[in-house]
């Protein structure tokens, strides 16, 4: 197997559907969501660490505005993403001496299966297809990873900032 130079933690679990209020949420299902969305990405990063160190690689953790906003009925998925944002930021600092970079990316609302599952009764055809984020990915992978490490990006946002 060749070296890993890019690790994208994309797979996520929306949790219980229909999305419950926290007060009534199943705790077992909550633990399961945290396991998938928060613990597993770290497990993968730990596994890939030696190779990422060798390649001075980049880790991209896919996050969500639900991790910041406090939307009603988004507490399960949202808290897993809030946790992942902190994991991303902390890892960016901790892995800097190893030459490994970490960013978080919120792709924004898109017409995907998961988005439909989150809004089962809604017509989501007004949301853009995932292709709308392609320019962002093309831009991101052409930046110097060490310059952008620690950033949290919105792929559909108006500003993709390069920190000074």
């Amino acid at each position, binding site marked *: 197997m060749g070296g890993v130079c890019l690790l994208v933690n994309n797979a996520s679990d929306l949790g219980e559907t229909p999305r419950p209020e926290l007060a009534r949420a199943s705790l077992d299902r909550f633990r399961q969501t945290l396991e998938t969305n928060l613990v597993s990405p770290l497990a993968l990063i730990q596994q890939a660490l030696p190779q990422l160190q060798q390649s001075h690689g980049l880790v991209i953790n896919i996050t969500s505005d639900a991790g910041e906003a406090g939307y009603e009925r988004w507490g399960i998925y949202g808290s897993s993403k809030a946790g992942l944002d902190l994991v991303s930021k902390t890892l960016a600092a901790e892995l800097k001496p190893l030459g490994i970079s970490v960013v978080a990316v919120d792709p924004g609302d898109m017409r995907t299966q998961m988005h439909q599952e989150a809004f089962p009764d809604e017509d989501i055809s007004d949301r853009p297809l995932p292709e709308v984020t*392609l*320019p962002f990915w*093309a*831009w991101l992978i*052409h930046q110097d990873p060490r310059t952008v490490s620690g950033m949290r990006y919105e792929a559909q946002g*108006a*500003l993709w900032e390069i920190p000074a």
Partner: protein
Amino acid sequence: MKREELSFERPTELFASQPPEMRGQSRDEVRLMVTWPEGNNSHHVFTDLPTLLKQGDLLVVNESATLPASLPATSQLGNIRLNLSTRFSDNLWIAEPRWSVSRPGPLPLEEGETLQIGDATAKLLKSYPGIPRLWLTQFSIPATSLMAKYGEPIHYSYAPVYPMEAYQTLFSIFPGSAEMPSAARPITSRVHNTLVAQGIGITGLTLHTGVSSLEIEDEIVEHQALYPETFHVPAATANAVNATRARGGRVVAVGTTVVRALETAWNGSMVRACAGSTSLYVHPGTGVHVVDGLLTGLHDPVTSHLAMLSTLMSIDHVRKAYAEAVEHRYLWHEFGGSHLIWKQQVESN
């Protein structure tokens, strides 16, 4: 805002096909229209600019220099033109394939198709989401070396191509623009010196322009997709803008590119040092926060530039000013006349 609100008539004989210095004038002898906060217009020569500003005002200019961004290319369709727009890396650009200088696309090109430029190749990876005439394009060698060898300035059917010099301004320092940020073109050394002598500040930022936007296609102006441009607002510039605002001076953007950069760097209370890529669309829904005035050229109908202008003054006043420009025979486009717009007071509703 509806698309037709940005529509107006202006005869094609008012397209400037020559730089003023090739019409026997100096760069700073182009016409200058001023739109005042009350919505009335006055008509001047560009050399009057210093008399229209006062001590303590601050001009913010774009320090991006123009590239020879138009390349001849060969495709399965024959000889075409590839205009580079925005750099993502040495070898990856957003680019616009055109039939020719005068004939735009979109061309019937397939994803993955390879264009030939000299002995290098340009692979069309993916058309830009929402803007099918633009492509994410991968070059086999750095595009700058192709530009050095084969490139010429991007130009359109209304004007022949001129030497690269004609597409640079007094402030062109950092190469990167696909097309000239032309608002500062009439600022000559003598105008510059007069401004400085009068205590009018001049500071710079960088925004590398992409290819010209075409007419907005969406019925709702605000829905139009815009592509990103690389920019940098240095700390010293942010400080100068904030200090000018704090002491009641007026901040005048020289060019729509400067408005875009400053609004991107606006954090809700001040401008901060900021760099990266911006696709911010400034329109009546977003408003403008940083600038009190805009010095710009005369723009085409139904473009995002006009949507930006209508954040500074009502759309009726934009239309009135443009009607006067036609009546007074102002020339359009990068070699044409100038327009200084003072922001109108926001009407409370």
